[in-house]
């Protein structure tokens, strides 16, 4: 790595244009909203600037903390499920023979080029009581009883699985929307993994499972961490899935924020809630940088 002083010109040419763009179209606007978070909602929903901490105080009220708590729980479950499905998928891609690797990768990315809302709506058709999933289950149910049902007087009526408009549906939708963000980073690190570590583990008598848990996962930890970070942060802010697939109590913190900027027309409070999340994200980022630094230190110490 070069010191920027040695190559001032090159460094400036590389750094200044993107920095300028991000400052202009990201940081400065964000400062505006940050200022809002200390303002007041006027009677008509307009934003009055000022300095008050009431928005932050309100953000820490029990009801909002409860929503945050629930959101974090759902987010943890979603992240875990994304990992549970995404890790083996990343493994499959990474260990697939040459041309299949790219094809599988493409297959994972492709659904993302379709509108998120439409894809989420499609889940309704799959999960609803008379939907594709329950249709399949009913078929299995009927076939089963027609096979063993001779002599049974009354065939039990098929009861559809209630999997739409509740937290289960929200979790399914969120996993669906975010799983590639888990697969891709894990795949990227696994690609660079020296396969002889795995062979060494097997050779020393470990089972495949133990090899995966004790050797492959620790060695792919950077990818797992960035994947989990991405999924976690994106899930935390998502509101569309809970809107479309959620039940009566599906409110997540993302919905809450979106509503403050929408129906409630309380931008200062929305801004304060956003910044509470943002500070939490900062802490996550900071923890990750500590972790990364520790890894680097571990690698560099000699």
């Amino acid at each position, binding site marked *: *790595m*070069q*010191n920027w002083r040695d190559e001032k010109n090159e*460094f400036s040419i590389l*750094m200044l244009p*993107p920095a300028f*763009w*991000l400052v202009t*179209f*990201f940081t400065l*606007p*964000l400062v*505006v*909203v940050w200022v*809002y978070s200390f303002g007041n909602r006027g009677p008509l929903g307009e934003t009055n600037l000022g300095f008050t901490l009431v928005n932050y105080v309100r953000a820490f009220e029990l009801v909002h903390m409860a929503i945050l708590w629930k959101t974090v729980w759902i987010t943890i479950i979603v992240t875990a499920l994304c990992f549970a*499905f995404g890790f*083996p*998928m990343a*493994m*499959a891609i990474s*260990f*697939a023979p040459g041309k*299949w690797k*790219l094809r599988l990768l*493409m*297959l*994972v*990315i*492709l*659904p*993302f080029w*379709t*509108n*998120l*809302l*439409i*894809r989420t*709506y*499609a*889940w309704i*058709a*799959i999960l609803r009581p008379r939907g*594709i999933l329950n249709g399949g289950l009913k078929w299995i149910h009927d076939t089963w009883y027609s096979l063993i049902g001779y002599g049974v007087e009354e065939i039990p009526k098929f009861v559809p699985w209630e999997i739409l408009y509740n937290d289960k549906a929200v979790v399914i939708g969120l996993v669906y929307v975010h*799983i590639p963000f888990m697969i891709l980073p894990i795949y990227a690190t696994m690609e660079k993994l020296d*396969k002889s570590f795995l062979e060494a583990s097997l050779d020393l008598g470990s089972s*495949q499972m133990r090899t995966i848990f004790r050797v492959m996962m620790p060695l792919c930890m950077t990818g797992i961490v960035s994947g989990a970070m991405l999924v976690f*942060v994106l899930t935390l*802010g998502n*509101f569309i899935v809970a809107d479309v697939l959620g039940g009566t109590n599906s409110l997540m913190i993302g919905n809450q*924020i979106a509503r403050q*900027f929408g129906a409630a027309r309380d*931008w200062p409070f*929305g*801004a304060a809630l*956003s910044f509470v999340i*943002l500070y939490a*994200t900062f802490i996550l*980022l*900071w923890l990750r*940088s500590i972790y990364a630094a520790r890894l680097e230190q571990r690698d560099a110490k000699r």
Partner: protein
Amino acid sequence: MRTFSSKRIGKSKVIEPLAYTKRSVIKLVIFVNLLFLYLPLLVLIAFSFNDSKRNIVWRGFTFKYYEKTLKNDQLMEALTNSLQVALLATFFATILGTMLGLALQRFRFPGKGPVDAWAHMPIMIPEVCMGVSLLAFFALVKIPLGLFTITASHIAFCIPFVAIVVRARAATIDPAMEEASYDLGASRIMTFWRITLPQLAPGIIAGALLAFTVSLDDFVITFFTGGPGSTTFPIQVYSMIKFSVTPEINAASTMLIVLTSIVIAVGLVLHAKTSEKDSEL
């Protein structure tokens, strides 16, 4: 030519320990994942042929929504706007993101840690918050809203995606390559064009694909930064919630899926070519 004896026949087939894709468990994982990813797509494609105004109950097969879609100027304009914004944003975000990724990879400078975290913030921040902040900002500095402001904002949140990928790729490049180029008398610019850039290509392409993906599907930020004449496809879709999503949207999406599949395929072919070159090197 020696022929292989049939000694092995009759013995069970053995799978090599790391040939995971040959294992039925992993095959199942691939199948379940792909089913999970594609079932909704299949559903939405199926409903684009549904002879009903809404996406609920199957009422027979029809092509009429494709016809309607192609004749729907508003929808086509929205698609054009979306593609235009996504392409422009991808183009500039790829350039700027590559620069940022290179700068962060190559240089040590005071405050690098915070700058690094800051550069990734656009991914981390709730979209509504960023959208509103941009709306307020553009109002404050009196920049008229329209395709320009949408594109500018898209570039801002696409930069980190490109930077992350390019940076990872740049880390794998041997610095000796550039040194060799200088040693052979090439200028900095020539070295960058002829040596650095071709090696970065897979990372840049992957970053550009990501940027294109997020830009194409963005609704929240696009909404807040748009003005007259800048309705994009996602805005069209979200606005429809009030009167339920019609099969025209499905038809348009299906066409978009086909189009993007082609783009991806082309991208893959290009990528395969560059990586072939890599392995030749």
